[in-house]
């Protein structure tokens, strides 16, 4: 390989999160030693308590921004980082803790904590990009090891990372998985969810939970209409479907609000899709 002029300094930061994204990095077992040769691992508390001061060539940020202190910290990290990458569903789409965005956070604090007066938190759980410019996002809960390695490889080689943004469906089909929605009627978020997991759930005959967040052009309106008419889900069942790991991703926010709001549901049942299904079913008459 070409000789590195210097080993890039890598920092890994944690915000409101479960640490699963950092574990994805540690899970790169075969590549871990090599990574520690190619990068100067300057700040990665989950792996080592040895800390090297900034600035950093590459910062990987895990977790969502949920407190005033975290707002200050993400700005400080941005100032010290040449490239800042948001890693995982929390850092890219608010994480599951973003369900608070749809409720009164004071009410929630009283339910969860014995002494809520000690909890200083923001009203919303938001991705890093809500506060600072983010150079690249690696989605997923947790992110894909393959995508993380592809990003790091591309970074080292100075090329564009090849990380697709299409639907999970394409992965299912590439792998020869039989569609759980079509063949078993299981509601599946795959058609509106971004690739990255290698179609993990459908491979085990489960519907997609949307861990990688919205794909590049998600048509949640059409998919929701199908769930209501053909999978027999009630509108209130659609809300938690979209409000999970990527609750604050704009396309899923819109989808969940549409389902939570009776007018939105009315619009869905009057959509061209629903009308076409009803027309066809009344025209066919027979099975």
């Amino acid at each position, binding site marked *: *390989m070409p000789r590195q002029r210097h080993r890039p300094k890598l920092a890994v930061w944690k915000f409101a999160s479960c640490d699963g994204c950092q574990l994805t990095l540690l899970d790169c077992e075969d590549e871990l030693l090599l990574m520690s040769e190619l990068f100067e691992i300057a700040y990665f508390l989950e792996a080592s308590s040895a800390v090297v001061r900034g600035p950093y060539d590459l910062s990987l940020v895990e977790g969502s921004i949920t407190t005033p202190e975290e707002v200050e910290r993400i700005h400080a990290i941005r100032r010290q980082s040449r490239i800042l990458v948001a890693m995982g569903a929390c850092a890219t789409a608010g994480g599951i803790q973003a369900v608070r965005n749809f409720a009164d956070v004071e009410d929630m604090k009283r339910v969860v904590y014995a002494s809520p007066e000690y909890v200083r938190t923001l009203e919303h759980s938001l991705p890093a990009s809500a506060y600072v410019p983010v150079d690249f996002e690696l989605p997923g809960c947790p992110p894909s090891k393959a995508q993380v390695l*592809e990003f790091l490889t591309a970074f080292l080689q100075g090329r564009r990372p*090849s990380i697709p943004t299409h639907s999970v469906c*394409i992965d299912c089909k590439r792998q020869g998985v039989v569609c759980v929605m*079509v063949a078993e009627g299981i509601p599946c978020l795959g*058609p509106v969810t971004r690739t990255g997991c290698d179609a993990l759930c459908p491979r085990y005959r489960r519907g997609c939970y949307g861990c990688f967040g919205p794909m590049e*052009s998600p048509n949640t*309106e059409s998919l929701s209409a199908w769930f209501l008419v053909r999978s027999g889900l009630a509108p209130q069942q659609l809300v938690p479907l979209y409000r999970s790991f990527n609750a604050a991703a704009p396309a899923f926010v819109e989808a969940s609000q549409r389902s939570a709001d009776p007018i939105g549901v009315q619009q869905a049942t009057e959509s*061209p899709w629903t009308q076409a299904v009803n027309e066809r079913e009344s025209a066919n008459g027979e099975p």
Partner: protein
Amino acid sequence: MPEAVVVEASQLANLLAALQARKYRVIGPTVRDGAIIYDDLTTVSDLPVGWTDEQEAGEYRLRRRDDGAYFGYAVGPYAWKRFLHPSPFTLWRARRTPDGVIVELTDAEPSRFAFLGVRPCDLAAIGILDRVLRDGPYVDPSYRDRRDHVFIVTVQCANFSPSTCFCVSMGTGPRAENGFDLALTELLDPGSHRFLVEIGSERGAEILRELAHRPASASDWETATRLVHKTAARMGRQLEVRGLPEALLANLEHHRWDHVAARCLTCGNCTMVCPTCFCFSVEDRSDLTGSVIERVRTADVCFTTAFTYTAGKSLRQSARSRYRQWLTHKLATWVTQFGTFGCVGCGRCITWCPVGIDITEEAAAISGLTRKDERP
């Protein structure tokens, strides 16, 4: 009538054995995860005996049948391109060594396949892929090397309900006249389970000599013909193809494109299940140190933004433009490009669209053409 014989259903095991003895990797229908798919067969018990399928737009269900039929169903989600044009497919690999860069070809000896249970529509689809990938000016060597060796056992369409099929409209079925080595028609009379076998090649005739057989009688032919006619008469879908390319291209701004775009998920399922969609993308992959590089070909899909990404921007931003590209390519511009339709009427895109978009319905609405097939 082509040369034909009759074999008992029990001879299917001998057919499989004869193919295996010639070192073919035999691929055929088998039940997996709630559907009939094509995969490696080792014994006849791998075949979906006693199974059928029920298909509708956006819906597929496996059902039991009690007549012991081997081939009593339409097509499943995966077409034969999976084997002829695999994805992902590593084209070559290069390693950096102390002695310099070493390039290895990774497809030195592709499998010799025997396809058992190729439906006439899928046979037509292979013919279309041949035109594009083998017989045209730009030959894909990996396709050619697989295709040239394939032994094809067609099964004429009988004994099932073709609900999302429209091969009659496309002129590709339910009976294949040629292009196969052997073609079976399954005859399920009370007390007599047998196959009418048509011989399509010298290789086919050679295999057949290893099976106990008798000449086909007029009544065998009569039964086979009646069964296939029955399938033709029960086509679940129709499409008027006369004047279709011109009518579609004259309606590129039809409001129906907006209507279907509102439903389209741009998920790409239709192209992935289509037996003729062949688009691919090629990318280079490298390890962390850049000492091993692979060039990999993967199936590409005109419903993704990456498909038309060029000079910093994707050219087809809207679902409308992507669906229109796909449908007009299948049913209009393919004709100009390759001399045939890019659609064989297998109905996979209708069944496997997660929200049940029906290409025949959309094409009829946009072109303004309708058709009622003449019953044979």
